[in-house]
């Protein structure tokens, strides 16, 4: 059957929205949040084929699923996050838990387990994290020892423990990473297998509607056929193969959570009359607490969508792009939720309104599937290699492309993107010459600057091509204004932060010379009209989200 087209995607999103409207009230969410309880009946109902069958998206068609493409999965993730990030995490854990099977399973394994997940509506959990092994899986302690019969390996005995496993206490099927004699490997363990127990549900800061629990394995026997791929030592490769993809899903969580918070604050601001008019008409209120966040959301949306489309062609990989998407979108969502509380004042600080809960929830997106700092390091490593390989030309070449875009379309901030790329190229080169990347802090910050300018570049590029990213509620003219604001600020951040890093670690560099080399004045000069542009975006936001 054909892949899902845009109309089908939008129809699925409508179905999900309608389901949430009818079944997942704010009161239900609030009660479960207070009780720290997963709404398991809701999750099971969302898996029901006749209601939504949401888990079918990740299952290939030949095994009774919908073979969802990256685009529809990220858009569903964004919508789920708007509903509740705890419920979203419960659904995502099944997606994630099935991934080792998707990447490494044999056809027979896929047939057996995917059919079970699809038709019996099984919840899945992904068991990788341990006390000493988070993003650094090398320190893995859980072991899988051979069980030999008649000289042949017939099974494994798994011993060890996992922590912070989403769906840990409620899943039916677990994919578990353990160290086999041949190296790290994924195993499928079913609930109820002797020796396998689940700890109590964690008492978390947020996503309290998601069950999180530790797992304990005491010589848990699994048959050899439960070794994913039937070959030991493939575990890390299988785990890493999906990072680009899984991180994109969490990026969509950050986006969805952030949007929901800001839109709640904006709705409030339209009704809150202060000093003779609604807050949403006050320039300072909008430009400080609302508008910048929405500009970043649209940039994030363009970048996530662009990466999703690439992943659909390349299938797996794109680890750097997935990391950029997640870092940018989740940090933006988190900051936006923080400001949404501020925007609503005392109301925002109470549990009567959703923003306080969203703020607690969205923080997790900066932590799970790779903390922001791990992502900064990943992004830095990926692009540092490009910088070295190209002898410093990597970003200079892109700068030239954006000069050409600017010549064709001077309204999308491509000139600022080009300036930002040149500044970044210069900062990276200074880091190379002066060996500044020996400072771990510099590598983190460079990862952040790279993500900032690369997201701005994609947003500008899409706008230059008159492409409105699906799911956006803005017209192309408004998106161009947003891209212009975003490009100018990103270039400024790259140049000014870059200067701070280089001068802060290398005192013998001439400040004026470096400032000139990154063309800080040229970047600052592009700021003319910035506030007018932001006011225009505010006006559009008021129009679109007016109740």
């Amino acid at each position, binding site marked *: *059957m*054909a892949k899902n087209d845009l109309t089908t995607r939008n129809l699925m999103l409508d179905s999900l929205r309608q389901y949430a409207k009818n079944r997942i009230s704010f009161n239900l969410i609030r009660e479960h949040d207070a009780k720290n309880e997963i709404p398991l009946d809701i999750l099971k109902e969302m898996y029901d084929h006749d209601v939504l069958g949401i888990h079918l998206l990740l299952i290939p068609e030949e095994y009774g699923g*919908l073979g969802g493409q990256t685009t529809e999965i990220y858009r569903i993730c964004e919508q789920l996050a708007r509903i509740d990030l705890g419920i979203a995490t419960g659904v995502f854990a099944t997606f994630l838990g099935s991934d080792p099977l998707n990447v490494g399973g044999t056809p027979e394994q896929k047939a057996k387990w995917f059919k079970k997940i699809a038709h019996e509506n099984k919840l899945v959990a992904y068991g990788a994290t341990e006390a000493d092994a988070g993003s650094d899986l090398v320190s893995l302690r859980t072991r899988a020892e051979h069980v030999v019969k008649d000289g042949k390996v017939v099974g494994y005995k798994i011993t060890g423990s996992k922590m912070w496993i989403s769906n840990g206490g409620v899943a039916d099927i677990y994919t578990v990473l353990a160290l086999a004699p041949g190296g790290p490997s994924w195993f499928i363990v079913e609930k109820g297998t002797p020796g396998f127990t689940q700890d109590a549900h964690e008492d978390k800061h947020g996503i309290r509607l998601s069950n999180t629990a530790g797992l304990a394995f005491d010589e848990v026997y699994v048959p050899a056929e439960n070794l994913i791929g039937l070959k030991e030592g493939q575990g890390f490769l299988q785990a890493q193969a999906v990072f680009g993809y899984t991180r994109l899903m969490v990026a969509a969580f950050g986006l969805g959570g952030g949007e929901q918070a800001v839109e709640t604050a904006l709705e409030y601001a339209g009704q809150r009359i202060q000093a003779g008019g609604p807050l949403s008409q006050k320039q300072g209120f909008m430009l400080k607490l609302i508008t910048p966040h929405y500009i970043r959301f649209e940039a994030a949306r363009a970048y996530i969508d662009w990466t999703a489309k690439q992943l659909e062609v390349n299938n797996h990989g794109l680890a750097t792009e997935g990391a950029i998407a997640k870092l940018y979108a989740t940090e933006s969502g988190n900051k936006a939720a923080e400001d949404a509380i501020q925007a609503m004042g005392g109301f925002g600080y109470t549990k009567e309104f959703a923003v306080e809960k969203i703020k607690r929830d969205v923080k997790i997106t900066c932590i799970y599937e790779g903390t922001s700092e791990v992502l900064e390091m990943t992004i830095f490593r990926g692009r540092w290699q490009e910088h070295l390989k190209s002898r410093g030309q990597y970003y200079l070449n892109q700068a030239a492309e954006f000069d050409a875009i600017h010549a064709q379309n001077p309204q999308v901030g491509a000139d600022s993107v080009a300036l930002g790329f040149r500044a970044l190229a210069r900062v990276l080169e200074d880091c190379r010459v002066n060996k500044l990347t020996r400072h771990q802090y510099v590598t983190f910050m460079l990862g952040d600057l790279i993500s900032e300018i690369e997201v701005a570049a994609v947003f500008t590029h899409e706008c230059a091509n008159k492409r409105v990213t699906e799911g956006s509620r803005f017209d192309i003219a408004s998106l161009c204004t947003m891209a212009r604001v975003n490009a100018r600020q990103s270039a400024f951040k790259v140049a000014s932060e870059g200067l701070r890093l280089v001068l802060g670690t290398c005192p013998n560099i001439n400040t004026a010379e470096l400032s000139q080399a990154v063309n800080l004045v040229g970047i600052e000069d592009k700021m003319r009209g910035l506030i007018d542009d932001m006011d225009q975006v505010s006006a559009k936001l008021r129009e*679109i989200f007016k109740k």
Partner: protein
Amino acid sequence: MNIIVCIKQVPDSTQVKVDPKTGTLIRAGVPSILNPYDHFALEKALEIKQKTGAKVTVLSMGPNQAVAVLRLALALGADEGVLLSDRAFAGSDTWATAYALATAIRKIGSYDLILCGQMAIDGDTAQTGPGIANQLGIPQITFCSNVDANGNQVVVKKLIDGGKQILEADMPVLVTMTMPVDYAPKYPSFLAAHKAQEKTIYTWTAADIGADPGKLGLNGSPTRVDRIFPPPARQKGEMVSGSPAELAAKLVEILKKESFVK
């Protein structure tokens, strides 16, 4: 039995505002939905299909984006969709729209029951359904809260002032449906949405249905919209308080003052 359901894509009226300066609708960023009355009519058609095995065809007129509501209908269980899409249809009022839809229905061919929503929530005219029946020269029953049909007859529950009528009619007949106040439209599962891609949606132009261009669009529309404006905000009322006796006295005084009683 063949059932045709006429459906329309409309802006979600809960989110549409009128620009007080220009008098035009602000459509920016407003999501589109299937007109809820049509959605209800469709669900009723699908219930009849469940019982009788009737074929359900959904028909809509609109721009290409309107394919979304046809797809929704197919995902919910309709068999086939037809979209009338052509610049020639643009600007049609209810008269010209009824002509276009009736002409398309003739092209679809055999039909026993035509279901329409009572009205669309963007125009609130309630004229298109009756217009189609008139064009086709078939009987119509309007404002029904329920409809049931076997192969030969329909039985409807029609809402009237102070009660309801149960009516029987021979087919072919056109029925327009109202909807319950607490109506929550059904949406399809992901699997149904996915499978609906395999069902056929025909796109027909004015030429395809052999429509007379002079009867379509602005030329074929006798209605002219003078202006659209939001109703003026209600004046603040006067609150009076006191014991029942005092209130009665005050009310009489006000009524006399305003010359409602002498």
